[in-house]
């Protein structure tokens, strides 16, 4: 399994701060989600980190078993 992590308001929208998903293309993972959550996760202001490293073009990620993919909305700061 792979793990999705939702930060900030995305955790509220997803109903929990993380979720286990089957490995595979992120596009497929998102397609299986409620549409409003998928849209929010792909918002251009949401950054994506794969195993702790920020990535660009996250939509093209293919999740392997054990991967952690985090969705990071704009920070509100410390």
């Amino acid at each position, binding site marked *: 399994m792979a793990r999705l*992590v939702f*930060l*900030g*308001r995305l*955790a*509220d929208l997803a109903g929990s*701060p993380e979720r286990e998903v089957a490995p595979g293309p992120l596009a497929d993972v998102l397609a299986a989600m409620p549409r409003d959550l998928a849209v929010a996760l792909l918002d251009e202001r949401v950054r994506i*980190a794969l*195993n*702790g490293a*920020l990535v660009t073009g996250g939509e093209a990620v293919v999740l392997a078993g054990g991967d*952690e993919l*985090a969705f*990071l*909305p*704009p*920070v*509100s*700061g*410390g």
Partner: protein
Amino acid sequence: MGIDVRLLHQPFNPGQFVGPFTHAHPGLGGVCTFVGEVRGGDGIEALELSHYAPLTLPGMEGLARRAAARFDLMGIMILHRTGIMLPGEPIVCVSAAARHRRAVFEAVDFAMDHLKSDSWFWKREKRGGVWAWIEPRAEDHSDLTRWA
């Protein structure tokens, strides 16, 4: 150069960290410390800060290293709370030590501006029993241009 960066998940007393930080830098001329607390008033009942461990702590460590190099510090300490906090509780404590006082003021000011606007924290406030997420503030971003 001493860098001490921590995420704290429980209420803390800044003095318990600032004393040892100061004593760890013999020969210093001055120490500047900023402590930010959860502001009361405005009906705020609680504040919650979430973080993402793989990014938040490395981000704070990078900030500490940049400040230390830019202002020629002997040491810098950045402590930041996460979790649920009540009004009056410290959220953040930044201390800088150097031989000269101008450097320590600027280093702490620099670190605070970056922590407030450019660090991996998400914040929500509870008012009247209802939690609401805090959006980034334009003021925080304009603060950063002071250091560009």
